């Protein structure tokens, strides 16, 4: 009979490992006892742990795997098999061609090749996919002329899908996928992620590297060991298990000893902790190369609940994109907020993994209030963005990112306005979006105590004034002057130069022969108001630029 093994909560990354560990075991129907700040499990649950590990990861992240991309085409083939190819049209063909390209690409990639070697089958998928060709229709010909070829491709594709979908094959193919799309985000360089690993079978490799040392460690008498695990204080024999394999956490102990005190590395862990750390990919929720984890560590149950909520939100999204992490976070925060009586979520650490880096935030009560108050404006920003040097930026993410860090949004608004003026082609947002951002910013500033809550809506009336001024310019046929003026106004706002702003503004109103709106009196009162009103005004002023005869407009 074996005794129970106890694992205590610790740092956020280790907590993520614990959650992953619990998820993996419970997914396979094993029992883990959860207490306030530790879990207990029997040694027996580690039998076949490697199978459970991959099963959980494959099942959880299935939608994101290239394996799924291949297999998910099956219903389409079946549809045409039943109905015949009468309805097959150009769109179908285009789709088929891009699918064939994908299949050809994936089936001969290195990770798939490695997986074929583990599979006992006499089918040669690479040969099969080689015989696939994208189907071209010549200008003169109709689509009917290629139906024969389509039929042929469908047959081969079906064979490939059958091969991929076979459970004993999926195990390795999808397993390899999981390693490179998910596991690699949190650790690297050892076991099956060691390029020089001797064991080619990923399951056996994992077992030998993580599970076996753990069970041996549990059995052995540790009383003579003189070192202590850096994480759980258990006794360990040597310091070989260092933190180097954890991305962005550890360092190469042999070559970079300057990281630790007096060049003596004492940061090493016991095999149990190492196994737990290896489960972090099952604890942190990844969407492609982004991840999110909430360290709600007041007790194990709430830690699990909160993170499973996020998992649920992400997996139920129709289209998974990298922005999903934020949306899921916001949704589950909002839900928790509504059940406020039952839950409190302030002062909790949120860890995000982006651009191969971890980012940390602690959500304050104030911040949660602000997020809740701005949720309507926020939700309207989800599909807006802009492109800068071939990279697409999502405004929703940028806004939340800044809010989490308690930064105001003036620099972002400034950038958006400049973009709108200088390269409208790269803008996937309109003035309404900018107004939303300004609204959020206003609520944020009020929430942080930087602005008094105004009864009238300064954003609306300021951007309204901008709009009417523009109309006046349009009547005078002088709309083209406005972009130069806008640049000058923006510069004035950025440098907090009220004189220059008012100078330009008064000039404009003189030219337009209109009276200056009262709202600008508010602008002169303090800096925050000045910026909010100023930016709102410019937003209104450049409103409708797309229809204003601009040739670059899309």
């Amino acid at each position: 009979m074996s005794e129970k093994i106890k694992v205590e909560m610790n740092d956020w990354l280790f907590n993520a490992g614990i959650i992953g560990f619990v998820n993996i075991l419970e997914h396979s129907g094993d029992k883990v006892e959860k207490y306030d700040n530790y879990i207990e499990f029997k040694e027996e649950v580690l039998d076949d742990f490697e199978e459970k590990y991959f099963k959980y990861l494959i099942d959880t992240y299935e939608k994101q795997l290239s394996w799924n991309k291949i297999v998910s085409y099956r219903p389409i083939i079946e549809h045409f098999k039943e109905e015949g190819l009468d309805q097959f049209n150009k769109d179908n063909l285009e789709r088929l061609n891009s699918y064939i390209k994908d299949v050809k690409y994936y089936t001969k990639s290195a990770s798939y090749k490695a997986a074929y070697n583990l599979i006992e089958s006499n089918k040669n998928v690479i040969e099969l996919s080689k015989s696939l060709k994208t189907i071209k229709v010549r200008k003169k010909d109709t689509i009917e002329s290629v139906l024969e070829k389509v039929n042929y491709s469908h047959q081969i594709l079906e064979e490939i899908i059958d091969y991929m979908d076979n459970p004993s094959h999926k195990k390795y193919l999808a397993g390899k996928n999981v390693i490179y799309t998910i596991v690699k985000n949190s650790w690297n360089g050892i076991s099956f992620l060691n390029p020089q690993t001797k064991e080619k079978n990923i399951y056996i490799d994992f077992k030998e590297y993580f599970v076996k040392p753990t069970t041996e460690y549990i059995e052995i008498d540790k009383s003579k060991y003189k070192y202590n695990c850096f994480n759980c204080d258990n006794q360990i024999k040597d310091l070989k298990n260092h933190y180097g394999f954890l991305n962005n956490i550890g360092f190469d102990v042999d070559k970079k000893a300057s990281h630790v005190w007096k060049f003596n590395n004492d940061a090493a862990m016991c095999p149990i902790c190492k196994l737990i750390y290896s489960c972090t990919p099952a604890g942190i929720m990844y969407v492609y190369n982004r991840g999110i984890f909430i360290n709600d560590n007041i007790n194990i149950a709430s830690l699990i609940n909160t993170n499973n909520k996020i998992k649920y939100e992400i997996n139920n999204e129709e289209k998974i994109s990298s922005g999903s992490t934020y949306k899921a976070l916001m949704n589950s925060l909002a839900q928790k907020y509504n059940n406020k009586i039952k839950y409190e979520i302030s002062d909790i650490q949120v860890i995000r993994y982006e651009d191969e880096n971890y980012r940390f935030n602690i959500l304050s009560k104030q911040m949660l209030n602000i997020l809740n108050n701005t949720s309507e404006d926020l939700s309207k920003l989800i599909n807006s963005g802009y492109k800068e040097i071939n990279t697409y930026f999502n405004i929703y993410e940028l806004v939340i990112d800044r809010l989490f860090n308690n930064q105001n949004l003036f620099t972002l608004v400034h950038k958006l306005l400049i973009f709108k003026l200088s390269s409208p082609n790269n803008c996937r947002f309109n003035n309404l979006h900018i107004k939303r951002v300004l609204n959020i910013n206003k609520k944020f500033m009020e929430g942080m105590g930087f602005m008094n809550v105004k009864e009238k809506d300064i954003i609306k009336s300021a951007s309204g004034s901008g709009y009417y001024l523009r109309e006046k310019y349009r009547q005078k046929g002088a709309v083209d002057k406005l972009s130069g003026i806008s640049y000058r106004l923006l510069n004035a706002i950025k440098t907090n130069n009220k004189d220059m702003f008012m100078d330009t503004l008064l000039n404009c109103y003189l030219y337009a022969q209109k009276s200056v709106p009262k709202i600008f009196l508010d602008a002169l009162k303090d800096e925050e108001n000045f910026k909010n009103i100023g930016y709102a005004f410019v937003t209104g002023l450049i409103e409708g630029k797309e229809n204003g005869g601009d040739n670059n407009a899309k």
Partner: protein
Amino acid sequence: MKAIRLKLYQNMVNYKKPTSFQLKETYPLPPYSTVIGMIHNLCGFEEYKEMNVSIQGKYFSKVNDLYTRYEFKNGMKYQEKRHQLKVSGYGVGRGVSTAELLVDVKLLIHIIPKDERYIDYIYNSLETPREYPSLGRREDLAIINEVKIVELAEKELEQDIILPENNVAYIPSSMYEDENIVIGGTNNSINSGTKYKINKNYELINHGSKKNPKVFRKWNKIDVIYSSRIIAPEWETVLVDEDNNIVFSA
């Protein structure tokens, strides 16, 4: 009981977590060991003087900033292929990495030395520091806004003490387990906050031989909860200073 109360302001600061070797993750408030280290440095103490510390405060926001990272091993020879700096024959790797920085940190710290005789000495060392005070990294200047000797007392409260808005504190687990302090507002069935194990002081332990020493620090860690929603309810007995600030002594 006497204590030294310290009010500090810091502009941009990083209180590094022990396991964050790459991106320097920061604690939201300075850990005990960091504060104790600062006091010892400013007082010129060469060995550990036992003391309790209470840490509370707030910060406004957080940014990530780049820093130059140097990595090397004692005695590592320069290797051209490794893109190292050549330092008189030895090789040092140089690159950039990110550090998390807290912005506009305001701290309220109580220092309670076990031996009361040190009170005046510590007070004087902080009142007229022998060099610039820094807390966190060496470059994280600390501006001392107040040093004061205050009287602490266990007091049965006549009315609730609520931590000022947005202020946070490390609450040692003993304090909230006894329910002297309520976390999470009036509804005390569920607490809110993040738990940390925070280093306080260490012993040196040699794992090598006498000739070839390999010295590790063995840390004494304190279980704390980090929270902003702290109330010391009336009728409870809580340690407070003369201005009714709760003292979270650990």
